[in-house]
């Protein structure tokens, strides 16, 4: 097994044993959807305007929870030192952590999405397939920068507090583009959809590339 695949596999095995990350992300995401529906009590046309925002706020908050857990798990018991011994570059280590975080986030989101569909009286049709596509692109953008930021925040005194402070302003482009794209798909107004999706693609590409090169400055033996 290649070292990069081995790190992803190690994360999956840990998750299968303790089931902490996905379950906490999932529960938190569902709670956000429920609380927003209490807060706004959307009806009819309002629901169409608010629903994409609610979905992406739930994804974002749940994602931050998962990212916080991902890197603090490595730093808490000095496990990172072991990872640094792996015969791969720091950039590849970053890609392995991104892959793990992406898998966990996608699993949680793909469970949150049907609940969101049911709560908002939407239909399980082609639109939802498009929303899944947008979720994949948005999540990739979110975890590509989130993995780097979680490594930065893991070094601070208030790691749980610091990640949202760093993550929320930097992922504004992802959240805006994803909310707009989801709204367009659900509302059948897809004029600027290619632009929105390309913005999500650009964000993910820029941050995957930049983080790949700067990750070595964040980890030291």
């Amino acid at each position, binding site marked *: 097994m290649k070292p990069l695949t081995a790190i992803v596999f190690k994360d999956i095995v840990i998750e299968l044993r303790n089931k902490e990350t996905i379950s906490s992300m999932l529960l938190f995401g569902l709670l956000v959807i429920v609380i927003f529906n209490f807060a706004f009590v959307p009806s009819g046309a309002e629901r169409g305007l608010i629903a994409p925002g609610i979905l992406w706020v739930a994804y974002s908050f749940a994602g931050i929870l998962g990212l916080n857990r991902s890197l603090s798990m490595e730093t808490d018991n000095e496990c990172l030192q072991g990872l640094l011994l792996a015969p791969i570059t720091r950039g590849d280590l970053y890609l392995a952590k991104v892959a793990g975080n992406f898998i966990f986030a996608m699993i949680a989101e793909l469970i949150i999405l049907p609940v969101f569909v049911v709560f908002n009286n939407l239909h399980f049709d082609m639109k939802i397939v498009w929303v899944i596509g947008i979720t994949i692109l948005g999540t990739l953008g979110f975890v590509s920068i989130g993995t780097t*930021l979680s490594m930065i925040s893991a070094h601070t005194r208030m790691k749980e507090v610091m990640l949202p402070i760093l993550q929320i302003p930097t992922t504004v482009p992802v959240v*805006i583009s994803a909310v707009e794209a989801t709204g367009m798909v659900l509302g059948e107004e897809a004029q600027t959809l290619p632009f929105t999706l390309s913005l999500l693609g650009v964000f993910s590409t820029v941050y995957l590339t930049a983080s790949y090169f*700067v990750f070595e400055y*964040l980890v030291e033996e």
Partner: protein
Amino acid sequence: MGRQILGVLSLVAILIALYFALVYAPTESTMGPLQRIFYFHVPQGILSYTCALFVGFGCLMFLVKNDLKWDRLAYCSAELGVLFSTTSMVTGMIWAKPVWGAWWVFDARLTAQLVLALLFVSYFMLRAYLPEREKKARLSTVFGFLAMLDVPINYFSIWLWTTQHPQPVIGGGGMDPQMRTAFLMSITAFGLLYAYLLTHRLAIAKLEDEVEYLEQVQAA
């Protein structure tokens, strides 16, 4: 000595710019005297993005050279970024209340400016919670670099929203020649003020680093 000259020059330029903005420039026909805030608001907005450019440049250079002077450039520029993005939002709000009837709307440009200010503040929050000087420089540099890469993408993404902010008239030739002169004077004055504040802050930051080093030597 150079800094004192820059300070005097910026003071003189501010006084001249005030005369140009408040007396020399003609009163705009629809908004009246209220439009004169434009001579303060726009240069501050431009300078906030200049600060972001310097933060990004300082961070990039620190990553390449590993010299603390580039980290100082980044965080001193970020401090001025907080200052100018805040003043540009405040002057914008003073203009918006009578014209739009609201202090704040989640309009494209306003939101872009707010997110920029939040990125600067996040950068400082991170620095505040990092322990040693070297680690502080290294980790905040990575965040500063990534955050400043975010600024142009953020700007474009926010344009997905419709904007009610006035469109630029500076490059489009829609500006009265006297107004243009007053605006150029204003931007020169603010540019000099920025240069003065940055050089002054950099000198203080260097002294702070020297004091910290001496304290460490003494403790050892």
